[in-house]
C-alpha cells in the first residue's frame, strides 16, 4: 500500500484524562458569561465597562509580557479570564480608566516579577483588586452589616438595612415551598430574603451577586475535573464551621448560633471558592497541602469577613492564604523526598 505521509508522528500519550488549560480558561469564561448576560439585561453599564477595561488591561499586559519573553501565551485564554475575574471583583462605580491601569500594572508586575504565569505565588487578580481597594476604597461598598447592628438585631441577616437587599418577586413563593415541603420536617424555617440573596444579592460588585449561577458553574467545574474539590470544600467547610460556632459570640449571640447561609451568600465567598482560590501557582501541589491551604483560607476568611457581607474580605482572604502557600510547599518538598527515600529503600529490599 502506498505510504500515507499525512500521518504525523507525535509522542505519547494519545489520551488525556483532564481538560487542557486553554479549555479550562474558555470554559470558566463561558460559565461566568451568564452572570454577564444578567448584568446586560439589567443594563448595569458601569460593571460591564469596568469588566471590559480590566480585560483590556490584562490582555495588554499579557501581550507585552509575550513580547518580552518571546513566547505566545495570549491565545490560551488565561489573560482574558484574569481580566474578567478582576472586573468581577470591582464595584460598578469604579473609574474605568483606573480599572484598566490597575489591571495592566498589577498583572504585569506580579507576573513578570515572579517569572510569568503560575510562577507567581500571589494571585495576580486578587492583588489587582486589593490595589484597587487600597487606592480607591471610596468606590467600594460598605460592610453589609455593622457590629452594632448585629448586636442589636441578634442575627446578621436581621441587621442588614432593608435597602441593601433586593427582594425577588418569587422569594415568597419559593421560600414557602421550601419551608412547606421539607424544612418543616426538620423543625426549621427559612426566613424570606435568603432566596433573593441566593439568586441576586444586588451588590454593586458582580462577583458577589449571582450565587445560584456560581453554584451551577461550580458543578460543571468540579464534575468535569477542571478544578479540584479539595480546596473549595476545605475552605467552605472551615469558614462555615467557624461562622456557625463563633461568629455571634462577640455580639452576645451565643455559641454555635452563627448564620452560615448569610456568610456564604454575601461577600463573594462562593465565587472566590470556585473561581479564584486555587489558581495555578498560588495553591500547594499535594492533596494534603491543598487541604491545609483550604482550611487556612477558611480560617482567614472568618477573621477577615466575620459574619459576612465584607466588600473585600474574600480578596484579602485569598492573599493571606497565598502567603501561606510557600511554607506549605516547604513541607511538601520534605514529604516528596521522604517518599522517594522510602521508594528507594523498598526497591533495595525487593532486589532492584
Amino acid at each position, binding site marked *: 500500500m502506498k505510504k500515507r505521509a499525512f500521518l504525523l508522528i507525535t509522542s505519547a500519550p*494519545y489520551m488525556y484524562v483532564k481538560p487542557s488549560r486553554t479549555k479550562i480558561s474558555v470554559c470558566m469564561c463561558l460559565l461566568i458569561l451568564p452572570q454577564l448576560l444578567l448584568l446586560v439585561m439589567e443594563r448595569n453599564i458601569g460593571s460591564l465597562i469596568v469588566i471590559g477595561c480590566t480585560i483590556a488591561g490584562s490582555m495588554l499586559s499579557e501581550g507585552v509580557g509575550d513580547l518580552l519573553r518571546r513566547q505566545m501565551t495570549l491565545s490560551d485564554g488565561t489573560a482574558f479570564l484574569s481580566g474578567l475575574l478582576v472586573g468581577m471583583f470591582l464595584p460598578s462605580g469604579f473609574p474605568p480608566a483606573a480599572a484598566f491601569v490597575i489591571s495592566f500594572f498589577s498583572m504585569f508586575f506580579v507576573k513578570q516579577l515572579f517569572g510569568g504565569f503560575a510562577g507567581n505565588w500571589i494571585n495576580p487578580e486578587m492583588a489587582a483588586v486589593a490595589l484597587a481597594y487600597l487606592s480607591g476604597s471610596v468606590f467600594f461598598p460598605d460592610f453589609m452589616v455593622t457590629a452594632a447592628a448585629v448586636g442589636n438585631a441578634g442575627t446578621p441577616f436581621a441587621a442588614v438595612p432593608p435597602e441593601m437587599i433586593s427582594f425577588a418577586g418569587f422569594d415568597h413563593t419559593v421560600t414557602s415551598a421550601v419551608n412547606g415541603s421539607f424544612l418543616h420536617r426538620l423543625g426549621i424555617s427559612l426566613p424570606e430574603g435568603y432566596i433573593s440573596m441566593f439568586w441576586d444579592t444586588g451588590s454593586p460588585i458582580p462577583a458577589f451577586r449571582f450565587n445560584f449561577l456560581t453554584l451551577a458553574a461550580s458543578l460543571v467545574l468540579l464534575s468535569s475535573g477542571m478544578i479540584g474539590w479539595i480546596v473549595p470544600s476545605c475552605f467552605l467547610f472551615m469558614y462555615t464551621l467557624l461562622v456557625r460556632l463563633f461568629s455571634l459570640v462577640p455580639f452576645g449571640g451565643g455559641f454555635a448560633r452563627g448564620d452560615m447561609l448569610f456568610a456564604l451568600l454575601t461577600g463573594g465567598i462562593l465565587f472566590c471558592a470556585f473561581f479564584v482560590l486555587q489558581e*495555578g501557582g498560588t495553591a500547594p501541589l499535594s492533596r494534603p497541602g491543598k487541604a491545609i491551604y483550604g482550611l487556612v483560607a477558611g480560617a482567614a476568611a472568618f477573621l477577615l469577613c466575620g459574619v459576612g457581607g465584607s466588600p473585600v474580605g474574600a480578596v484579602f482572604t485569598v492573599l493571606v492564604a497565598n502567603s501561606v502557600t510557600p511554607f506549605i510547599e516547604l513541607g511538601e518538598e520534605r514529604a516528596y523526598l521522604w517518599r522517594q527515600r522510602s521508594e528507594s529503600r523498598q526497591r533495595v529490599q525487593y532486589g532492584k
Partner: protein
Amino acid sequence: MAWFYNLKKGGLRTGSAAVQYTDFLNAYLPSVALMPLLHHVGESPRLVVREGDRVDEGQLVGIGSGSSAHVHSSVPGIVRDFRHIRMPDGKKQLAVCIELDGSFSLLGKRKETVSWGFLPEPELVRIIEEKGVINTFSSPVPLAVQLRSFRIQHPPAPPVLLVRLFDEDPTYDTDGFLSRVYLSHVLEGAAVTARAADVMSIILVHNSKEWSGPDEKELSDIFSHRKVRVLSMYGALYPNGNRRELVNAVNAEEKKSPGIFWGDLMIDAVTAMNVYEAVVHNTPVMEQFVHVSGDGLVRQGMFKVRIGTSIGDLIAECGGFSARPEKIIINGLVLGQAAYDLDTPVTKYTKSLCVFTKSSYKPGVETTCTRCGECAAVCPVGLYPAKLYQIYRTAGNSGALRDQALLCEECAACSCVCPSRIPLFQAARYLKYAADGEKK
C-alpha cells in the same frame, strides 16, 4: 487486597476501559508479508534467506544468536527483496519481503500435540528459543535468553514466575482477551515457562472482580504441584501492571518477607500463549492477536493476524477508514507509538491498533506549566514531574533532584493528567537515562 491497593499513593483513573471481546476474526493472509528481522530489544538476528528463495510457512528467515530471537516466515512464498521499513516503535529495520506463493504446511492442518511433561528443562528452553518466542511483558526481549540468565542468577529467594493476565495499558485488551477465551492454553503456557525457568512458585495476577479460572487443586495439577497464588488487581488505579506495581502488590500481602523480587521472571498472557503454541503444538511465533479499535475504522474487533501483515492490510480487513485518519496508534493510547505509515508491519510485540479521525483526536498543544500539582498527585513513585521537566528545560545541574528521575517508571500517568500538555514523562525518561549513563 484490591481495596487495600486502592489506598496507594498516586495513580490514575483512566475511565476508558477497552471493549472486551469474546471472539476474534482471522485476518486475511497478506499477499506480501514484510517480515521484520528484529522484534525485540537487542541484536538483530542473522538473515538466512536470499532474494528469490522459496520459503515455507514457519521456515526460518533469521537466526538468533546470543541475545536475539529466531524469526520465521509467517506465509509460504518467494523472497522478493529486503527493505528497510518503519517499525511500530518508530525505528527503521530490515524486513524480508515475502510474496505469498505455494501451499501452507501448518495452516488448515491438524495441529500436532506434544506431551512436554517428560522433556528436560534445557530442552524446553531450546524449543522456546527455536520457535522465536519473545516476552512482551514490558520491553520485548527473547524469552529463551531471559530463561537462561534467570536459571543462572535468580533472585535471593525461591524463584517465582509472575503471569500478568491483563494489559499494562488500559486502552486495549489483548492479554485480557487471551486470559478469558484461552485461559487453559495460557495457563499451560505458563506451566511450561515455570518448568523451563525452574521456579518454585507461580503468581497469577488478574484484574477481574473474581477469579473464574480453575480452583486451587486444578491449578496445582496444571503447574505440577508447584505453589500457585492468584492475586486480583481489580479496581487498582493505573499504573497497575508494571513490574514495580506488581512487586509491591504481591509483597503488600506478605507479612514477613518479600514474596517476589524485581529480578523474578514475569510474563504476560500473550507470551504464555506463544509458549503454549511453541511447545505443545510445535508451532513457531507466526501470528499475533491484535485489538483493533478507533472511530477511524469501519469495523473494530479482535483479529488474529499473521506477523508481517502491514497495518494498511489490517485496516483494509476492517473495512477501511470510516473518515480521513488523523492518527494511527500502535500498542495503546497511554504508552503506545504513532505509526509513521501504513506499511508498518504487525510484529511479535504488536498488541493493538487504534485509528483516530480528526474529530476524535485532540492533539495536546503544550502551554506553560500552571503548577497545578496534578502530575505530582498521580505519580506512583512520588516524583514531582513538573520539577524534573524544569530541570530538563533549563539543563539545570541540581544532581540530587535530577537523580530522582531514576525512580521514574515511565508509566506516563503524569503526561495524561497535565492540563498544559507538557511531555513530562519523556523529560523524566531523558533525565533518567542521562543520570543512569553517568552513574555507569
